[in-house]
């Protein structure tokens, strides 16, 4: 089994386990059962990557994580579940793009670079999340609003950059 497939399985198990454990800890056994059912849905999404199924699965998983947090599941499990879902979603597309053509050296190199970037992105994101979660800082409402405005501005800049660089 190639590295990307191994990582897909690990991340998928992590997503399902985190969600199921979170709902289980909150005493929502029905939720835990539904969370387990997300696993087969992801496998189906991997089979049909050209459909909207991967997007739906990602939204459902993140939605489950949000709902789990709201009903009192441990926040770290939900954050890990959503981050792992992001990795699963990305690996579905990577697997679809590479298919069975990963024999060439340059294609293997591309796969390795992709996986390294994914690890970097998720690692830094989770690290920042953990730091933010453990360092309890009382942020005033005004600062929150400024932070949101900053995010929206950043997203706008990103969009502008994409347009400028001719991304189609």
């Amino acid at each position: 089994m190639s590295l990307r497939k191994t990582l897909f399985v690990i991340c998928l198990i992590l997503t399902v386990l985190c969600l199921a454990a979170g709902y289980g800890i909150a005493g929502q056994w029905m939720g835990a059962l539904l969370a387990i059912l997300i696993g087969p849905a992801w496998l189906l999404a991997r089979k049909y990557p050209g459909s909207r199924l991967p997007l739906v699965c990602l939204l459902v998983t993140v939605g489950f994580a949000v709902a789990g947090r709201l009903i009192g599941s441990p926040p770290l499990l939900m954050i890990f579940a959503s981050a792992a879902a992001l990795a699963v979603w990305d690996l579905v597309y990577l697997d679809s793009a590479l298919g069975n053509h990963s024999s060439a050296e340059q294609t293997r190199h591309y796969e390795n670079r992709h996986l390294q970037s994914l690890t970097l992105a998720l690692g830094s994101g989770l690290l920042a999340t953990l730091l933010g979660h453990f360092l309890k800082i009382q942020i005033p409402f005004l600062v929150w609003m400024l932070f949101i405005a900053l995010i929206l501005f950043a997203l706008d800049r990103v969009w502008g950059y994409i347009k400028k660089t001719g991304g189609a």
Partner: protein
Amino acid sequence: MNEKTPTIGLVAVFLLIAALITRNGDIAWMILPFLAFLMVGILQTPDLERVSLHAKRSWEQSRTNGIISIVVKLVVQNKGPEAVHLFMEEIVQPGMKITDGELNQWVTLRPGETTELNYAFTAARGNFSWKSIRTRVSDPLGLIETELLLPDNTTIQVRPQIKKFKGISLRPRSTLHSPGSIPARIGGSGTDFFGVREYHPGDSLRTLDWRLTARHPRKFFTKEFEQEEIAEIGLILDARRNADLQIRGESLFEHGVSAAASLAEMFLHQGHRVSLFVFGENMLRAFPGYGKRQLHRIMSCLSKAKIEKENSALGNLDFLPIRMFPPHALILVISSLMPSDRYLFQRLRAYGYQALLVSPDPIDFAYPALSQDTTNQLAIRAARIERRLRLNAIAQLHIPVVDWQVDQPLFPLVRNALTRSRGQREL
């Protein structure tokens, strides 16, 4: 940009709204992995001004059991100073049947590194041309993609299949004054005895008829030989939508193309001057010429010939520019024939051309695909009578007609028709 970036943005906005509505900080923290994913992608997006790629497409053609197989190789080299994450994709054109290899691949090219994309395709006939190689440069996560069309002009021409015909000894009404193989019915420097005439100063002494000279004192006679010249031949291929028929993936037009190619090859091989006109939405022509270069021109036209969409202006052959062909040429029309086409043949006769119609039989071609019920049988019978009347109308113009059932060999039919036409002329 592909659909990954909007998806990440959508999830981030969804989480932000959820966090604001529920005023839950933990949900807000969930955004960070998604934003980090987006940022890593954006930060690693290559600067297009520093990307320098060189592409080349090469190909080899081979023929196995009459099927032409073309192996295409796309080579892309990174000439820039940085590694590039690249998606290469080949543009498949209509008529190409991919038999082997890959049509796209994701690669990472370090500076100076080269990658190849190999595939093979078969095609019955066609002109396949590319002006560029399509690539997409992106970050390693594939979030922001930019399409780059790397210039590369390549044309692959798959010529129609030629059936080698033996030579036909033509006797056209008029010949072209150039040494060839057709007896021209005029005295000159040939091999066959033509006649005797009085000696003219300058005649070679070797051609003096000594016996006749001996019988006529003080007079000299010279033997004349029949001059051998070449023929002027024009081919007209009908490429109108209505003249074609597609049955079970096979096209009647392709048989016509193959016939035109085989006849052109045979006539050029015999040394005649041949021209071609393809009458359809795209008018293609090869002006009169000789030899291998002319064969190349004709094959190039035939490989490009295709049936386009229906055009009412091309309903009949009235608009065919027949004056493109030199006067008194032998014109071979390859057409399955439509009701109004008779006027073309009248015009050909009026302009003094000698004509021959090779008509692939559409009824016989479609027959195996039709159900054998009574109604169909009657319809087929009626269609056959109608076609026979149409062909007879053309034959009445003293134009030989070849009613060609495409599963039969064409050569004997054409040979017989041309021989018969000689007989008709002599009558």
